[in-house]
């Protein structure tokens, strides 16, 4: 495979891993006001993602950095075209990060209410907006030959874009609820199980609607029809989503969460494979589209970066997996009083 193609799929993989990891943090933040009834519930929920969210967010930084390094023209055009939604996402991520840290600093109900609201908005907004952004990327945007975007925020809020947003939000809600099933106990866990169970059919329906709409709204299926073997990815996504249901019924939450992780990665790859080799498509004129071939860095840069990624990303995965293992145990009430939590 050519370097550009390898980088195209690495680019997709980094975004997929970001959605898989930070996705459950977003999900926990989104259901936080609804199933966190008491202050102890809330502290437990924040502590359930507390040790991990920061490391998870670095997948976003890396995905952004790799876009810059491997496809500078895409980095430049995509982020200036998506100026407003990207800034909204960044501000949301800022207030999410500090709300986690600040909330526990002062024991006052008013103070906590402010940061509770920030935590919710800072989690739900990026979940929704990333979905809207990616659905629009799947669909193509009004980009001219100079990389100038001819549209505004409302251009992005078309039905297919919104469908993508809602799908992401629901995927992450399910994903976050499953993580809470792993890390909590008692009433809170029962509520998390309830959310997981109820969100599942919604996710299933949305996934199917999204796949079918993609047929009409995008060119994603072109690659699939050219290479029918690729349909396995879509089938695998649906099978792993069925797996979520299966393991949830058996109360093996870790497996259910794993199946949900796989669903998110495969759902992202459904789009990434369909896009190939286009990274940022123009719907004004296909010639303006930025592809892995016309927007990549020089072969030397791609090679050096490939070396870096091959050496370091497995290492990152190894120590993050260790961190996940250390912190996949239940958050106990006594932990909340020992400075081991928020």
């Amino acid at each position: 495979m050519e370097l550009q193609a390898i980088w195209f799929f690495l680019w997709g993989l980094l975004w997929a891993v970001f959605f898989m990891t930070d996705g459950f943090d977003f999900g926990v933040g989104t259901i936080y006001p609804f199933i966190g009834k008491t202050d102890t519930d809330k502290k437990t929920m924040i502590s359930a993602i507390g040790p991990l969210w920061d490391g998870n967010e670095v997948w976003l930084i890396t995905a952004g950095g790799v876009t810059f390094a491997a496809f500078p023209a895409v980095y430049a055009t995509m982020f200036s075209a998506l100026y407003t939604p990207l800034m909204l996402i960044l501000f949301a991520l800022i207030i999410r990060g500090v709300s986690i840290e600040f909330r526990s600093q002062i024991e006052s109900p008013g103070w906590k209410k402010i940061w509770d609201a920030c935590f919710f908005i800072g989690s739900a907004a990026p979940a929704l907006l990333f979905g809207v952004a990616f659905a629009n990327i799947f669909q193509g945007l009004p980009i001219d030959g100079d990389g100038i975007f001819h549209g505004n925020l409302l251009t992005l809020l078309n039905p297919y874009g919104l469908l993508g947003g809602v799908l992401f939000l629901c995927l992450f809600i399910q994903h976050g609820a499953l993580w809470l099933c792993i890390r909590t106990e008692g009433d809170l866990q029962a509520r998390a199980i309830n959310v997981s169970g109820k969100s599942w059919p919604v996710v299933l329906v949305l996934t199917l609607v999204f796949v079918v709409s993609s047929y009409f709204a995008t060119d994603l299926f072109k690659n699939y029809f050219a290479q029918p073997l690729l349909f396995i990815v879509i089938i695998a996504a649906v099978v792993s989503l069925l797996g979520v249901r299966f393991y949830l019924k058996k109360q093996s939450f870790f497996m259910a969460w794993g199946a949900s992780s796989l669903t998110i990665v495969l759902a992202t790859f459904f789009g990434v494979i369909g896009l190939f080799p286009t990274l940022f498509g123009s719907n004004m004129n296909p010639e303006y589209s930025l592809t892995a071939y016309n927007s990549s860095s020089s072969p030397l840069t791609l090679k050096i970066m490939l070396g870096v990624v091959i050496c370091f990303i497995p290492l990152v995965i190894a120590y993050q997996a260790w961190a996940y293992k250390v912190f996949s145990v239940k958050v106990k009430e006594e932990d909340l009083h020992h400075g081991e939590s928020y």
Partner: protein
Amino acid sequence: MDVVFLSRLQFAAATMFHFLFVPLTLGLSVLLAFMETRYARTGDEDYLRMTKFFGKLFLINFAVGVVTGITLEFQFGTNWSRYSEYVGDVFGSLLAIEASVAFFLESTFIGIWMFGWKKLSAKAHAFVMWLVAIAGSLSAIWILAANSWMQHPVGYAIRNGRAELTDFLAIVFQKFALLEMFHTLTASYIFGAFFVMGVSAYHLLKKNEVQLFTKAFNMALVVGLVSSVLAFISGDLHGIHVAEVQPAKLAAMESHWETAERAPVFLFAIPDEENETNLIEIGRLPGVLSFLATHDFNAKITGLKDIPKEERPPVLITSLAFKAMVGLGTFFPLITLLLWIKRKKLLENPLLLKIMLFSIPLPVVALESGWVLAEVGRQPWIVYGLMKTSDAASPVAGPQVLFTLIAFVIVYGLLGAVGYYLMFKNAKKGPEAA
């Protein structure tokens, strides 16, 4: 509305705010690692309580530093897309390496450190703080390599209408980068040391936890003395190199107008850019500029008048930033040396302790001035000699940028206020009871 100007303001606001917190993260993490290692080795509970106390302040600072860093990575794309497209082949890889090699390590292990007190042994826990400290400095090294390339581009060729990488190692190991890394890191360690000394001084003045804070103070004093001497030396070397590769910046730093041998330094000067002269000149030291720039009192130094007007940086800001940085950079080794001489009788010296308490913000003033000097002094270039800042902005609408600029100022202003309030509150409260 001028998109370039608004984007510059926004980038300056975002970077300078981020940089209020980052150097403290770098410096304090090293001190925390020393403190916790001491605890793991000796079992002395004072060091454990010290680690937890300063650790709490560290985490508040870290949180604000981290969240404000995310926007920076993306602003090159949102606001400087022409720049990103033109130099991304070289510049982008440095940012991507920073994330995958260093930032992952720092962010993953800070979570483990924070929540892992009971899950890890004392030694393993201290080791985790070392990983955080090393990863932080490593992160800075990659970012500074990227910045150094903007200051003094090497290892590239113009091909396919853009700057393409030709020699990766030349970029990372170029003299400018090594000096900038050494100078910025040592300056950051000064901030960590002055923070610990200042907070300790506050409690020592109140005769609160005297034993613990004496230990903390002495530990920070060693780090502060060593790093302020090293920052001073590296600053001198860096200055010589800047004189060599960025003559316009050097001339602006000293508001030096006429090309001359035995070029002077003024202790204080206010430049008048319109009339190409200085309004006020106080304390003329002949030959000193020649000496600082080359270590030879008689060397010829190019004046601003011999640099085309459109290639001169803003002289007033550059020169004031330089003076602030150098003044403070001279104060740090002197005061820490004095403290070192008097270290046995600290408690009998409330004046010295008070000076240290009020010196807490000084290192960050020096650090910010250093950055203003580096960045404003590079103008009008975004990449020195290669690309002008005015050609680098994104084709976005002015009002869009104005809107986000206002949002940045409001959101960051609130974050800063809350962050500092929480740090003050916890610093005053002192360590938890044993």
